[in-house]
């Protein structure tokens, strides 16, 4: 089931906001992604900086895929039709 891995690979270089299960939200440039949907962000800034002072000097980070709740994308970052087709193909072919 490589669909989202391939999808995220196409989004490399875009600005995304990753919301984690511990409620921490990080904004940054998607640097890379892997089969576990681990994410590497560059130019990382915390959405609520005051609440997380320890993150002040963190510019690049590795986020374990298992702790991601949401990945928020720019509205023009989604080609819904393409995603739709790929999903149908996956569902059919498996």
């Amino acid at each position, binding site marked *: 089931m490589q669909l989202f891995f391939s999808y995220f690979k196409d989004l490399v270089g875009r600005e995304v906001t990753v919301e984690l299960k511990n409620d921490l939200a990080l904004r940054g440039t998607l640097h*890379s992604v892997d089969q576990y949907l681990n994410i590497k962000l560059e130019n*990382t800034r915390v959405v609520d900086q005051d609440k997380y002072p*320890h993150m002040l000097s963190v*510019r690049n980070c590795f986020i374990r895929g298992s702790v991601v709740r949401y990945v928020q994308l720019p509205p023009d970052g989604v080609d819904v039709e393409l995603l739709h087709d790929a999903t149908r193909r996956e569902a059919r072919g498996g």
Partner: protein
Amino acid sequence: MSWAGPEDIYLSTSLANYLDKKLLALLRDGRKLFGTLRSFDQFANAVLEGACERIIVGDLYCDIPLGLYIIRGENVVLIGELAQKAEEVASDLKGTMKKRMDFLDMD
């Protein structure tokens, strides 16, 4: 949508670039561990050398030295690369201030 091509092997989210760097590891229980990454594996298990736990309360923080740590990957939330400059400037500043204070014969 593109499928995996030969050039995609270069696109890998590995911790290899973080080796021997001073990092912040955020754990699921809220702990913040600082240390130098010496090893890792596919589960994001990590070996931190010179690890310390930084406890932050408001504007104050304190470091508890822990030594050599192996962190089980399932507890890892995030591994952050610390901007070397910020930490270095802070410790460089410490050095110069102490030199300036030498005439005080504090020791």
